[in-house]
């Protein structure tokens, strides 16, 4: 029997097909779709309003003015979109692992991580994306950052970098369920940590700064990558390195996740 090879285009094609089918069925439950869309707008709106009220009253924080803060906020919203849209099934992992339903992902001739994640596409992330882009453009215009191919290119690369960190964080948090029982807490804590991402890391000091940079790399979700655009004359080395560190973290989290699958003993009959 000839060996079948499955490359990048195969995986992209499969993902697209699953996504199309999934969206079709989601839209066929019309009421459900409309309600969740409204809910998604409300959630984003309330987060946005809270932010506005909070920062209207503080003209600058550590030398960051209102529009810079807004930029960071928008940046973090956009950077969080991929994890929300494409990796949302991480939230179901621990239930499937305890019930034994996880086994079904291991019977197909494709990568288990891919197959697991491909099952869920969360549309709610798209609302966040729209808000994020809106905020980003608004802040961008007020700060007066030039619109050139270079700045746009930088923005895209560093948005991608930032999202890699968030994905890595959630992968690693979810994968703890292969070892511990109460892994739900780990995920919730990690997810809460992301709220710190929208503040400039310079407001943290000492132990927290170290913690949020190297242990739980929250500072990479918005702060370090956005400095490349906000403050192009004083970019710290960590900012330039962040794309590589991001890839490394993602790769490590993927390996950790797959290690969990290998170690898992498939409970349930």
């Amino acid at each position, binding site marked *: 029997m000839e060996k*079948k090879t499955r490359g990048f285009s195969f995986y992209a094609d499969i993902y697209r097909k699953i996504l199309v089918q999934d969206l079709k069925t989601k839209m066929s439950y019309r009421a459900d779709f409309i309600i969740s869309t409204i809910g998604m707008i409300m959630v984003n709106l309330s987060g946005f309003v809270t932010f506005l009220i909070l920062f209207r009253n503080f003209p600058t924080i550590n030398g960051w003015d209102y529009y810079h803060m807004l930029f960071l906020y928008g940046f973090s919203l956009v950077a969080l979109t991929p994890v929300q849209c494409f990796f949302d099934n991480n939230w179901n992992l621990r239930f499937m692992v305890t019930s034994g339903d996880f*086994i079904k992902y*291991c019977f197909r*001739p*494709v990568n288990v991580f891919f197959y697991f994640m491909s099952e869920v596409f969360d549309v709610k992330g798209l609302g966040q994306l729209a808000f994020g882009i809106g905020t980003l453009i608004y802040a961008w215009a007020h700060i007066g950052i030039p619109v050139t191919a270079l700045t746009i290119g930088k923005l895209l690369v560093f948005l991608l970098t930032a999202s890699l960190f968030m994905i890595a964080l959630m992968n690693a948090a979810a994968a703890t369920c292969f070892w*511990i029982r*109460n892994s739900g807490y780990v995920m919730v804590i990690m997810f809460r940590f992301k709220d710190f991402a929208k503040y400039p890391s310079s407001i943290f000091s000492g132990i927290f700064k170290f913690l949020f940079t190297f242990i739980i790399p929250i500072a990479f979700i918005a702060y370090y990558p956005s400095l490349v655009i906000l403050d192009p004359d004083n970019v710290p080395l960590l900012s330039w390195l962040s794309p590589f560190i991001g890839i490394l973290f993602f790769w490590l989290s993927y390996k950790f996740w797959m290690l969990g699958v290998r170690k898992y*003993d*498939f409970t349930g*009959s």
Partner: protein
Amino acid sequence: MEDQALVMKNVCKDFKVLNRHEGLKGSIQDLFSRDYKTISAVKDVSLEVARGEIIGYLGPNGAGKSTTIKMMTGVLEPTSGEILVNGKVPYKNRTENCENIGVVFGQRSQLWWSLPLIESFKLLRDLYMVPQQQYEDMIELYRSLVDIEPIINKPVRQMSLGQRTLSDILAAFIHNPAIVFLDEPTIGLDVSMKDKIRALIKGLNKEKNTTVILTTHDMGDVDALCRRIVIIDKGMKIYDNDIEHLKGYFGSYRTLHMKLADDTWEQMLIDEKTTDVMQVITEKQKVTKIKDIRLEEISTEEVIKKIYEGEAV
């Protein structure tokens, strides 16, 4: 091609189970604990299955059947021993092994929950890279074996348990695998659905020469599908031969059915070597009227029960 679909040599599987502690402090303790106990789920099982064979892999609850299947499908690594599926070690070549096997775990659907069945089929076609012609032929074959019209456009989430199981079995064959593993496929189904599913499995096995490894607690499945059975108990293989051979061993046993005065049937298993059937009937007649009598050879169910209860073969 190798002539054996599956070979197992002295396969053992141990599970290490942590002795868990209570509370938050206990959870933290568990993280670093070395306090394990070992459960031997499968002990020294050897087995060869030829192409096209359907074997019944039987045993009481907790015997180790599902564990064996998990090893054969490559998701669990044997603690020791050797397994070859289609000539390859499943655990070492999981994705390659999956190319050529189908798996159904009763009551655990593997299909996309919200998609209509036909869309699931198409996605599987693409996942397994099945040529379009071969896919269409398979769907045609399905149509000839079972009425798929009522379910083909239904989302899996709206299906009854029986329809879902039927769908899962169809899905397990879509890429024409060499071996299909069915772990309790008829669990929780009504008699007519069981019949349909048995006919389907039999038909697919005949048409495609697919090897089938079937575990079940329903001896109706065994009667309908398997010539050969393998029985394991407490992880050890205790029987491996034709079902007829086993029945022959219990050849002197008869099942006596008696219809009593109140129109109920009573049944009794009698060993003719030690008990006289006529005498049993006479004794019974002293206490109640007997309207009808039937004498049958021992059923598969009763043979298996005897084995589970420890009758040596």
